[in-house]
């Protein structure tokens, strides 16, 4: 068990832990793991994984490759069809998370496993202590506060999770697992919603833990992170191990090749030059209330022109969500005005806004953008289902034939990989779900598309496809409002960037002014004088 009283890491470099591939003895062994889901999906096929004590091991693969499945098996959440798991040379039986935790295995999940109505403290102490005893919140609070100091991951402990931004939730998820003092720490895409600074801090913590003997398995789509942190990687593709290799000496291209089987990393499409055109969206002095009634967006003004991608960068939870909800008619505007193609959108609902030329890829696609139990077919007309073009003669009857043609066209055009149109949306991989949602919105041929976190959690291929789509419609002369916490994405796509901090726009930068460090600082609320121009 790692000793937390030791000074935090920093000098991690001097204890370079070794990988099995470099000759270290394996501590964790997964042998011949096969997993068949009840619906018949063969998610894993005879997968082997070997990790040494104190190693930081990367697990890579496209969406749906089986990474989460493998790790859920290791953390006791999922039963597996066949195979063996050995820990320290002895076979272990992991029939539940309870077992796994007892063996010192803890996991930070990709989709947060927090109870939304509990506060952070209760989420952290959940499942611990004697059933009939009172929860010792005071002791836990002290412990967590020390942990927060050590790791630099801060979160409010007394606010219900559902009122917290996703970034904070992610930090709590990590704290919760760290607090268990596990020997094997599994992290499934932990950085998807963290700021660059937070990511760096987390990595420092992970290095420190590894240095003290904690074994870490990290799932991520961000190759930069893999290269920076891991000792070795294992790559999965379609449920099988493609291979394992030491990170040392590998390049991003090498890893990408292992993942997708192609040589080149996909690049963002060429952007066409436009003449300066009329503004499509004009926002003047907009104020929007958050869920708690506070001003989440404070007196914000900007314009977006046709043929432009206007990005809003910022740490999640700084008012971006409220801003796009207000602009897409899902949240009332408290003050100020917004105009779409010159017409006020104040007080308009989503349907009216759609008629005025707005499309919206919501941040939270599971909650807003789709109905998971509906088929691909049914999801393809969400929001346009009331249109006469999908009607039959008999008043009000949906013409499923027409819908089918429309959906087939969408699937084809946006290369959604689905077994069929009748497949329930929830059975699609996240990337393909997102492609359908983006495609559906683009097919509205909008004047303005609002895209919230359009590539969050997607693999390299899907991410590139969606980014291409966004550039395409920009090139067609449409306006795009992109909200993304991924700074790389913002830098790659945007014509202009506005940085939001605590509900205000601190600066709007032109493309030639883009500078990673400066934007990173602005995201942290550090306002340098030079941005004012």
């Amino acid at each position, binding site marked *: 068990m790692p000793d937390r009283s030791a000074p935090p890491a920093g000098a991690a470099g001097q204890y370079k832990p070794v990988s099995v591939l470099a000759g270290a003895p394996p501590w964790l062994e997964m042998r*011949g793991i096969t997993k068949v889901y009840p619906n018949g999906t063969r998610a894993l096929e005879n997968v082997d994984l070997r990790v040494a004590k104190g190693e930081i091991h990367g697990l890579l693969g496209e969406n749906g490759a089986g990474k989460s499945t493998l790790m859920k098996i290791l953390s006791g959440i999922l039963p597996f*069809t*066949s195979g063996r798991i050995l820990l320290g040379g002895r076979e272990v039986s992991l029939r539940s998370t309870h077992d796994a935790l007892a063996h010192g295995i803890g996991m930070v999940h990709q989709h947060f496993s927090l109870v939304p109505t509990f506060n952070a403290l209760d989420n952290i102490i959940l499942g611990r202590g004697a059933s009939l005893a009172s929860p010792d919140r005071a002791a836990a609070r002290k412990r967590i506060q020390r942990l927060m100091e050590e790791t630099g991951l801060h979160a409010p402990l007394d606010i219900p999770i559902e009122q917290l931004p996703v970034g904070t939730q992610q930090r709590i998820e990590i704290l919760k697992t760290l607090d268990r003092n596990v020997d094997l720490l599994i992290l499934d895409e932990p950085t998807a919603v963290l700021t660059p600074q937070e990511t760096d801090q987390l990595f420092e913590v992970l290095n420190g833990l590894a240095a003290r003997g904690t074994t870490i398995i990290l799932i991520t789509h961000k190759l930069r992170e893999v290269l920076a942190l891991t000792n070795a990687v294992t790559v999965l593709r379609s449920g099988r191990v493609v291979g394992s290799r030491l990170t040392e000496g590998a390049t991003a291209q090498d890893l990408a090749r292992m993942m997708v089987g192609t040589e080149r990393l996909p690049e963002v499409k060429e952007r066409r030059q436009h003449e300066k055109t009329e503004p499509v969206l004009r926002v003047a002095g907009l104020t929007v209330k958050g869920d708690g009634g506070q001003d989440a967006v404070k007196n914000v003004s900007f314009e977006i022109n046709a043929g432009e991608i206007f990005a809003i960068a910022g740490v999640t939870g700084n008012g971006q969500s409220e801003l796009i909800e207000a602009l897409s008619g899902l949240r009332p505007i408290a003050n100020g005005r917004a105009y779409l193609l010159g017409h006020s959108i104040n007080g308009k609902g989503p349907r009216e806004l759609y008629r005025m030329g707005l499309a919206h890829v919501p941040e939270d696609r599971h909650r807003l*953008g*789709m109905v998971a139990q509906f088929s691909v077919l049914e999801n393809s007309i969400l*929001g346009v*289902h009331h249109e006469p073009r999908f009607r039959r003669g008999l008043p009000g*009857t949906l013409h499923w034939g027409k819908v089918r043609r429309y959906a087939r066209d969408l699937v084809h055009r946006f290369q959604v990989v689905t*077994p069929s*149109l009748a497949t329930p949306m929830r059975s699609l991989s996240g990337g393909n779900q997102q492609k359908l949602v983006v495609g559906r919105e683009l097919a509205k041929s909008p004047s303005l598309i609002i895209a919230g976190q359009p590539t969050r959690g997607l693999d390299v291929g899907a991410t590139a496809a969606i980014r291409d789509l966004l550039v395409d419609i920009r090139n067609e002369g449409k306006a795009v409002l992109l909200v993304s916490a991924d700074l790389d994405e913002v830098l790659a796509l945007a014509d202009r960037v506005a940085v939001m901090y605590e509900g205000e726009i601190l600066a709007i930068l032109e493309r030639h002014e883009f500078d990673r460090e400066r934007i990173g600082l602005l995201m942290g609320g550090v306002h340098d004088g030079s941005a004012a121009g």
Partner: protein
Amino acid sequence: MDPRPVEQRELEALSRRERQRQLRGTFAGLAEIVVALVIGLFVGALVMDGAGYDWKLAYEGLLIGAFGDQWAIADTLASATPLILTGLVFGLSARAGYFNIGAQGQMIVGALAAVAVGAHVSAPPVMAVTLTFLAAALAGALWALPAALLKATRGVHEVISTIMFNWIAHYTALYMVFNVLNDPRSAERTVRVLPEARLGAIIPGADMTAAIFVAVGVALFMYWLLWHSPWGYEMRIAGLNPSALRYAGASPLWSVNLTFILAGIAAGIAGATQIIGRPPTYALYGDLSNVRNLGFDGIAVALIGRNHPLGIILAAIFIGAMGAGSRMMQIMAGVPLDMVRIVHGTVIIALAAPEVWSLLGKFLSRGRARREAASTAHSKTVQR
């Protein structure tokens, strides 16, 4: 980007396969129901045997009473008629995400309205029947509306409001039957609806009237609504993912109202069928005994029918058959009505857990999966 472009033809082949899988799902659903039935009947047989009844004779009676001749079939359908409608009330609401157990009250109010209009408004036969149904539907809808509004504006959970409205309807009806709509010559019930407003038996000697067509028509309408209209599409979104409803441009307020109103209409019509579509009385009894429990039985019907309008028709016929069959169970085998309830309850409980059977199936196929996995692993080593 996925290297494989989606082939149109491939997609269609896959769609076909998906449809086949769905069809297989439907069959599996039917099989589940059959298995549940068998279990329920088996338990019933055990109990009857233990209590000293001749269960074979009883089941023979059940079958004869339910389907033995044209009268039996007609009586089965007559019993099914109101159940289709009250089943739709629960089923439609459940599809839209509401636990609406207000069918009983809405039906009572519908029955009252049917009496009020059917007994007092004289019109040519078809008109009179139509008017009566309309009045009942309107009454049912109006009775359902407060629950919807309370839900939408005050956040009052429909379970509590519909239970309360059921009882309020019950007492209101007790009052109305005895004080307002009472038949002075036969004070145990209301006045009878005028002959023009009555639906006569289709097969002489059995209870079935044209009301069955009305009930099936309403069920088909609900089916059309849910799966072939944009409003039903929105209702289903509301049931599955209410947050997506606003995103899709629909109004949650409108959706909840529409759902409750349509459910109320079905319930109101159910009330009317018991008044104008059920010989010989064509009136509401003072103890409300001709609409008793139909609302609650509708919940069972909807659940057995998996909240699908067409499933509800079948389920209502099933429950109707149990009712009609119980007659001959009593007459032929002397089995008391309460025994039928045991069979009935057991069947429903058995229906609750389809996974028992799939679990059983899985247990049987697990061995197969193991062997398969082992053999693929083996072949792989060989390839190496």
